[in-house]
């Protein structure tokens, strides 16, 4: 095997190895529990899967693309004697510490609200078609602040299904860009 050929094989091996090592090191699942008590809550999907505030972040919940869920939540505070303000949100964690607020509920103290610390009911949702299915975990964090008490719960979930065309498009673009990067390693002609 000639020197040039060995160099090419070594180059490809180092490139592949570096990529795998970086991805392997960075793909470790989240292990931190991001739960701030004392609130409790649960969501039950129509297939019987129940997610509570104790759901560890190391596990990923696979949610149907559309479903009617039964939910309940308890701030564990005494029921207020008069209407009081509260706020909260559900947000999706994005790369580089970013987040996307899916829904929030800032309710001012002068609003006419039900004076209870417990809520439950059913909720029907449909995940938009453009949201990729069968992906890696997406961390969703719910926060609720009331009477000086803040509760935080985070759950890792993905939408049931297969990634489909977007994943193949991404793979194709990655391979094409990788080929372009390899082309940068072709020697220039000496004049």
């Amino acid at each position, binding site marked *: 095997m000639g020197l*040039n050929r060995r*160099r*090419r094989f*070594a*180059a490809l091996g180092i*490139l592949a190895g*570096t*990529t795998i090592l*970086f*991805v392997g090191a*960075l*793909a470790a*699942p*989240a292990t931190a529990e991001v739960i701030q008590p004392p609130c409790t809550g649960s969501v039950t999907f129509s297939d019987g899967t129940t997610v509570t505030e104790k759901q560890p972040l190391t596990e990923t919940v696979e949610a149907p693309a559309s479903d009617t869920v039964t939910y309940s939540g308890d701030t564990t505070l005494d029921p207020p004697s008069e209407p009081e303000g509260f706020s909260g949100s559900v947000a*999706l*964690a*994005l*790369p*580089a510490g970013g987040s996307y607020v899916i829904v929030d509920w800032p309710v001012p103290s002068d609003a006419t609200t039900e004076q209870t610390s417990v809520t439950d009911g059913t909720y029907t949702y449909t995940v938009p078609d453009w949201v*990729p299915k*069968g*992906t*890696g*975990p*997406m*961390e969703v964090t719910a926060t609720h602040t009331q009477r000086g008490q803040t509760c935080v719960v985070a759950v*890792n979930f*993905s939408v049931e299904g297969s*990634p489909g065309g*977007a*994943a193949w498009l*991404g*793979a194709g*673009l*990655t391979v094409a*860009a*990788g*080929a*372009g*990067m*390899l*082309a*940068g*390693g*072709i*020697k*220039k*002609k*000496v*004049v």
Partner: protein
Amino acid sequence: MNGRPVIGGIFGLLFGLFLGPTLWLWGVIPLDSPAIVILPLVGLVLGILFAAWAPFGSAEPAPATATPTDEEE
């Protein structure tokens, strides 16, 4: 620098930019993984280093261009 650092850098950056979201789409990493931010930078550096190394092709001389000779003048 024996290779093509501009090409290597640009395509290395693109390689990293596409690789992160693709790994998420295929379920390998979570959406909030630092890999999605770091991989483009790694790709940029790798692309430039790869161009500096230039392990492909041979440094053959380019075809000589015709130059006027004394006889032609």
